[in-house]
């Protein structure tokens, strides 16, 4: 089934970023990213300036997709955690609430055990926010149009053409 479009409002972004900031501190990690399965960055925290976040999001989603393909091949529902160990930096990647991917970038200041522990707690909070986002999307579907929907419904072919000028 085609997943519904993901709609992130300011309140969602604020809440998710707060969860990620807490995780980043608690897990003593360098940076934390929340990505959707299609490879879009949803939120991040920590030292993200040194990382190409768009590429990271796309490659992580590809990685998760390939891993879930492997799981199915072997009769597993999914492999929900991936760990990549580098010389200095390491990545802990886990699935959250079926559509999210939580990525923790950490170094020797932290440990895999600590990251795993903190990721577990943060995942519960993210599941909660996602559930509320899904409930809201359902409510909205039954209601009238939001300001954005009205705004977007009014775009014309010229607006789209203008994107390609210059």
């Amino acid at each position, binding site marked *: 089934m085609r997943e519904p479009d993901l709609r992130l409002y300011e309140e969602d972004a604020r809440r998710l970023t707060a969860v990620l900031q807490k995780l980043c501190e608690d897990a003593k990690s360098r940076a934390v990213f929340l990505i959707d399965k*299609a490879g879009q960055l949803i939120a991040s925290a920590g030292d993200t300036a040194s990382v190409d976040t768009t*590429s990271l999001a796309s490659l992580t989603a590809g990685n998760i997709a390939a891993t879930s393909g492997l799981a199915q091949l072997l009769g597993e529902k999914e492999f929900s955690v991936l760990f990549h160990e580098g010389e200095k930096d390491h990545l802990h990647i886990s699935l959250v609430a079926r559509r999210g991917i939580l990525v923790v970038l950490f170094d020797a200041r932290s440990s895999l055990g600590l990251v795993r522990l903190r990721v577990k707690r943060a995942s519960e909070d993210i599941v909660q926010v996602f559930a509320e986002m899904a409930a809201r999307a359902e409510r909205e579907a039954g209601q009238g149009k939001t300001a954005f929907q009205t705004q977007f419904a009014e775009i014309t072919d010229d607006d789209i053409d203008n994107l390609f000028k210059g």
Partner: protein
Amino acid sequence: MSFINYAAREINCKLVYYGPGLCGKTTNLQFIYTKVEPGTKGKLISLATETERTLFFDFLPLELGSIRGFKTRFHLYTVPGQVFYDASRKLILRGADGVIFVADSQVERMESNIESLENLEDNLAEQSMKLEAMPFILQYNKRDLPNAVPVEELQGALNPRNVPWFEACAATGVGVFETLKGAAKLVLNELKKKT
């Protein structure tokens, strides 16, 4: 599955270039990458073999500009065209908002084109998706080659529904942006319809 980020005022869409091996999917992305302003594109990532055949995917993030205050971002992906990479193709199709089928115009590649198009329909069906129900366009690539079959023949074999199609020569860039624009338009119109 588009991603609308109200907080950052961004619309993110995923476009997939599909087609048989060596039809020019990666070449399309490479040309776009060389032509767009540095500020509007990210890195071009190619997960390829040592002989530069796509192993998993190519990825190019592109910022097209703003519509009514919303930044529109397109994530362009290619699939590996070679027949035996089917598992990877299925993964990359997931969450696609639109598909560009790149057909190789050379007469000896006609069978591969048809096979690849059928493969696309099968892979979408596995995800309960239908080609008819999603933004889809065709690019007839390699029009400059002497053994290219006439467009009418390609249309007859690959485009029974007469979806938008573009002639191209991806290596020199002819038709590359026209194709991208055609697909982006359909995707944005679809998004408009859904809202």
